[in-house]
């Protein structure tokens, strides 16, 4: 904010000039200031672009986060009761429509139960291989989304209302009850910034449920619908439609293993790259994110109740 401190004397000087040539008082913006500010912006871009991890801009981001985090949390708390109003004011039509949808879903689930034996086998095999047991050593810190990055910035990030005081740190996995949401980029004391898996910069190591093939799930930042791209490491394997993709993960890396990501809906063969590209629809509805959980090592000290792996609250 030091920049505007310099604005005081400048505005004072400008006023005196105006006083002198009152007759020709067109308020012309000075080109020299434009050049100076544009150069300042460009040097800021250069500073931040060439050293992304240990950027000199990072401390400034942290300071802004410490300042704006609590305000965003408070604002979200004030706004929350109003955003839930539409769900109270539902008409009979929308309720009967919901009953129709639920009946359809019910019959779909019934047919799934009929084929559950096959899925059960797949699941057991898969669980053993991804060492899902390791993820049992994880506890969940609950948090709520308090701010969303705008699409004008072409990045898919949100702020959540838990930070280093709650035991969070960079690269932790963020999930909700549908599946993988993203990972923590940076934390302040009371908030954390989360990179959603739909962001173009997000790459998640994924594993296809039925074949156990590994690949990489890229966010494509598309606006209209949440879709992810899956590229398999082995180009000769064709992922099957409706296969579930889970994280491949590592206990040290950003994504914990075995978290469901989404379902394969379409498969394209790229002749030029001689590889398979599959479209994955994520389980999480990113336009309606609210309560999320951050996976932290079991026993982490936190300023709030932590959900342990066995479901107990601590």
């Amino acid at each position, binding site marked *: *904010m030091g*920049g*505007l401190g310099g*604005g*005081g004397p*400048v*505005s004072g000087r*400008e*006023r005196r000039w*105006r006083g002198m040539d009152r007759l020709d*008082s*067109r*308020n012309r*913006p000075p080109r020299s*200031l*434009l050049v100076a*500010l544009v150069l300042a*912006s*460009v*040097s*800021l*871009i*250069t*500073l*931040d*672009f060439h050293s992304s991890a240990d*950027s000199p*801009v990072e401390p*400034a*981001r942290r300071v*802004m*986060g410490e300042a704006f*985090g609590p305000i*965003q949390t408070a*604002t*979200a708390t004030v*706004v929350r009761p109003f*955003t839930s109003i539409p769900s109270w004011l539902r008409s009979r039509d929308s309720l009967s429509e919901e009953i129709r949808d639920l009946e359809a879903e019910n019959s779909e689930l019934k047919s799934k139960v009929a084929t559950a034996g096959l899925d059960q086998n797949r699941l057991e095999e898969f669980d053993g291989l991804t060492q899902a047991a390791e993820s049992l050593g994880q506890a969940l810190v609950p948090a709520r989304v*308090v*701010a*969303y*990055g*705008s*699409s*004008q*910035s*072409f990045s898919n*990030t*949100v*702020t959540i209302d838990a930070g280093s005081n709650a035991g969070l740190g960079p690269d932790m996995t963020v999930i909700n009850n549908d599946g993988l949401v993203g990972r923590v*980029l940076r934390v302040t004391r009371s*908030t954390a*910034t989360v*990179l959603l898996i739909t*962001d*173009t*910069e997000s790459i998640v190591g994924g594993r296809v449920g039925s074949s156990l093939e590994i690949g990489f799930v890229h966010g494509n930042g*598309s*606006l*209209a619908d949440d879709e992810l791209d899956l590229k398999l490491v082995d180009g000769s394997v064709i992922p099957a439609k409706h296969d579930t993709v889970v994280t491949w993960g590592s206990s040290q890396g950003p994504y914990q293993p075995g978290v469901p990501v989404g379902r394969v809906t379409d498969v394209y063969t790229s002749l030029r790259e001689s590889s398979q590209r599959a479209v994955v629809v994520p389980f999480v509805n990113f336009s309606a994110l609210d309560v999320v959980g951050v996976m932290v090592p079991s026993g982490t000290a936190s300023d709030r109740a932590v959900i342990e792996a066995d479901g107990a609250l601590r």
Partner: protein
Amino acid sequence: MNQPSSRVRPFIAVAAVALALVLQASVFPHVAWHGIVPNLCLLVVVGAALTINAPAAMVLGFVAGVALDLAPPADHVAGRWALALTVVAFLAARVRQDVKPTAAAVVGTVAAASFIGTSIFALTGLVLGDSASVPDLLEVIAVAVLWDVLLTPLVLPPLMALFGRLDPQLAAA
């Protein structure tokens, strides 16, 4: 001219930017279309450029841009919104006449400013290698301009009245 008010002025301007930033990140996403929200910071900068003197408005544009670049959910390369909003402030101050702008002129300025600002941000992204597709960029720019124009009648009159009181001599011109 009394000294305390001139010392308080930058703080009021920065407070307006901070309020815009919080509303933009925490309130408007609930009514956003595909995540595109009205760019309130840009509206504050345009309101300032149409009211207070040009150098102060340009510095405010730069500060608002840096704030948009650094405030929590943002994760793009810092300096991109700073560049966009500085240019927006310069151009808006440039087109401003000495007479009080008409409603149509304000709406036109906001539409142009929104188009130019969002475009500059998108173009810097292309230069720096962001992999957003050009049709997506155009869609975002179009919706952003529409949002900003829709909010102009609600946001710009109180903003310009506020900045006019901060800088009475210039607002009277």
